[in-house]
């Protein structure tokens, strides 16, 4: 591959950078017990939740910021962050016509027109715009089946018993530094409950955006699939261009009860900073699923944005015969860094897990796969397969693989393999000789490299993800 190709690959502009001026109702920057109380009060939360937040906040104060990760970042000033910002005109709408036209336009730019999606694809979108859910579609249709799909705050008001039972059961606030912070100050998020035996008739979807300058986004998602239920959940993100680093510390909790199946897919394309590494989003997320007996939790992610991506969507395979899956494509370019992977904790008997991770690094991009497979003593007959492949484009990027494999059961079978390579000149030559341009050739090879993961995405998303990868590789014609 030529130098220019790599150069242009690495330099294609971020396409979703703009700021929309929606009036925001903000709390002053800074973090204290008062702020936590104020957030809670603004959201009319019950006493128990306020207390839970405060407990999390007090615990957070006792913790120190981790520093074992590979990507290093300048110290975050937690007192400089605005912890609550909500669009002032909170619309209560039943149809798209009533939504702030500027908002609609924003979504239009993102290519996720609610209107179109509603009509053509049947995807229900819970659009999260700077922390407050402004619109929920298809809710009525879902509620006929007993499915609850709403914003987190609504769930707290309408279904406190379910929220209270499961909140923090998978990711307790003591879990890690950023989970504790999130638990204290989370503004909103999505909530979903699928009743026993129900197969959710459509892909549930939510789009996150970070908008107001200096607003840290602290989403909280709780998804519960009751016995024998099935749900496929999509999460996609783009963020406007900013110079200041923005912290995003979300928590996602999945509970798959007996025989349930949760499929959680993410496409992430937040602002990665400019080509010198200025600005960009810090994406520090805690995602974890708990699988009970015969349940299945499946994570699929395509990570192309953010200055730093630092997340390990994990599965706790507590029930016998439960299954965990992790499929990931991570792409870093310019000065982007990613430290991502998964944890598969095998507790129950005959638990199975699969990890497929593909990393693509270009420019000065640096990425790390860090994964843990832990087979506990009682996990008789556990099975794991992991494959982590890295593709390097250019001689300034880095790719690292740090698997942790811990086996305490002799009947467990664990396999791990990893490889690192570059796109060979022969491959590119072959495709060019067949009439493809160099850019198309590279794009095709990268898409082929990621195929195992992309094919796991739901149809609608697979298209978007492929486009996104293509977009990221754009400018490759030398």
């Amino acid at each position, binding site marked *: 591959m030529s130098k220019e190709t790599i150069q242009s690959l690495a330099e294609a502009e971020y396409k979703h950078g703009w700021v929309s001026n929606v009036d925001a109702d903000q709390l002053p920057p800074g973090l204290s017990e008062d702020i936590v109380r104020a957030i809670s009060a603004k959201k009319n939360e019950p006493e128990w939740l306020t207390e839970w937040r405060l407990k999390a906040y007090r615990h957070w104060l006792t913790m120190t910021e981790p520093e074992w990760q590979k990507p290093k970042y300048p110290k975050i000033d937690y007192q400089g962050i605005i912890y609550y910002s909500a669009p002032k005109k909170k619309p209560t709408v039943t149809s798209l016509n009533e939504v702030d036209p500027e908002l609609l336009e924003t979504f239009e730019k993102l290519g996720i027109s609610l209107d179109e999606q509603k009509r053509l694809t049947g995807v229900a979108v819970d659009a999260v715009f700077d922390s407050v859910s402004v619109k929920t579609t298809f809710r009525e249709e879902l509620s006929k089946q007993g499915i609850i799909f709403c914003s987190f705050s609504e769930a707290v008001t309408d279904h406190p018993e379910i929220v209270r039972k499961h909140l923090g059961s998978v990711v307790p606030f003591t879990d890690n530094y950023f989970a504790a912070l999130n638990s204290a100050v989370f503004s909103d998020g999505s909530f979903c409950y699928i009743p026993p035996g129900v197969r959710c008739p459509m892909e549930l979807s939510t789009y996150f955006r970070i908008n107001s300058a200096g607003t840290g986004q602290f989403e909280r998602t709780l998804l519960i699939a009751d016995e024998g239920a099935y749900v496929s959940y999509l999460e996609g993100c783009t963020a406007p261009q900013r110079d200041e680093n923005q912290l995003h510390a979300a928590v996602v909790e999945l509970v798959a009860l007996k025989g349930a199946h949760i499929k959680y897919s993410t496409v992430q394309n937040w602002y990665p900073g400019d080509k010198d590494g200025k600005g960009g989003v810090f994406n520090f997320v805690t995602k974890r699923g708990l699988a009970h007996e015969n349940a299945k939790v499946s994570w699929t992610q395509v990570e192309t944005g953010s200055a730093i991506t630092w997340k390990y969507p994990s599965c706790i395979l507590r029930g016998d015969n439960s299954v965990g899956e992790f499929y990931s494509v991570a792409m870093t370019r310019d000065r982007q860094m990613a430290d991502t992977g998964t944890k598969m904790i095998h507790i129950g008997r005959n638990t199975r897990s699969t990890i497929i991770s593909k990393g693509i690094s270009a420019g000065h991009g640096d990425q790390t796969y860090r994964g843990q497979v832990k087979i506990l003593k009682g996990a008789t007959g556990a099975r794991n397969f992991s494959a982590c492949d890295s593709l390097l484009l250019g001689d*300034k990027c880095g790719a690292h693989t740090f698997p942790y494999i811990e*086996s305490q059961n002799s009947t467990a*079978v664990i396999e791990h393999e990893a490889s690192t390579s570059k796109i060979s000149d022969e491959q590119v030559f072959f495709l060019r000789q067949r009439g493809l341009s160099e850019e198309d050739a590279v794009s095709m090879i990268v898409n082929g490299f990621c195929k195992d993961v992309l094919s796991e995405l739901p149809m609608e998303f697979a298209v978007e993800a492929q486009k996104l990868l293509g977009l990221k590789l754009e400018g490759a014609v030398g």
Partner: protein
Amino acid sequence: MTIQTENPLQSLIDAHTAGKAEPAWLSELRADAADSFAALGVPTVRHEEWRYTSLKSLLALKLAPAAHAAVLDADLKPYFIAGADDIRLVFVNGHFDAALSKLPTLPQGLLVAPLSSQFRTDDEGLPSKLARYADHHAQPFTALNMALFSDGAYIRAGRDAQLETPVHVLYVATAPQATAPRTLLLAGENAGLTLIESFVGLGKAAGFCDAVCEIVLQQGAHVQHTRLLRDGVAHHIGWNEVRQDRDSNYTHNSISLQAQLARNDVNVMLTGEGANCTLHGLVLGAGSAHVDNHIIVDHVRPRCVSKQLYRSVVDERARSVFSGKVIVRPGAAGTDAQQQNNNLLLSDDARADTKPQLEIYCDDVKCSHGATSGQLDAAAVFFLRSRGLDVQQARNVLTYAFANEIIEQVTIEPVRAHLEDVMRQRFHGLLGD
């Protein structure tokens, strides 16, 4: 690094350094190392490089500083390697034992001697070589070794010097003492050397051995290094520091046959183009053994080849740890690095943790690693049973076959034969003898 509030090992240093008549360069080195050990402290499991290995049992030991003891030739008999014992250095509790050693006259350009004999006489500059490779400012146990060590093997081959006969160095401990043996091997341009290090504990010596081995290969040199942890090794921490210049070739075989708590570090820096390094390891763990193999291969220059193959068999409550890291520095194009770790768990109380790691900063590389962990194949056991073997025999045959793949890699014929014997005894009566 986490510093222990109480560090019982510290007192050993104080006892050791008192009243030594040594050359100034050595005393300075010792003092420096002692300072850095005090500063670094003993790592705990909260330290990433020690997360699977707790040193609590080591710190609980009541250790005395190493002292002389008489050992009979007969006691060591099982540890001599027939056919590879013509050059032999025996150190008992850290002190050179001339009676047990064999030091024939060597051709020009070759030197095999205890380090202590060269402190004052060596004109080739031992002061500029000893402790210059293994960094005692970063590694607490390398620092402790430097502060505590009294003697060790010194092997040197000048340009083009070839020593066909293997050099066998036996480090023997007889009592619950803290010993700190140190090996220094310098292979000049195109020189060839074979080194065997055996660590043996006699009787019920629940001691602590803190070993350091520095090996330097100059352009085109060949070194084969075999490291055997034999019986009675209670607590062993060994650091092997290897530097390889252009087109040199280094082979390392690490065989841990029986150890209560062992940690083997191999740190290879490929500082010359086209260097080649091959590392093999075998762990046989039973009882409450804990063996931790820790490897770093650092590809600094282009076109180097490295290969790691480590296997462990853990039975009863034994635990094995493998942590292998390959670093490919920017500009180290044409690197070919392979890493493989296979673990066989024979009991439900056994445990295997593995951490094969790649850290790559260059695109023109071929790097791969693989790790597996599992039990014996039920179909294979069944097949052998259908041929008339009982369960235990069948399991032993398969385990032997799994482990023997590492033994087969040992290219020094007498050592391999010796190890095969030891293995047969371990899997007694199962192979028709």
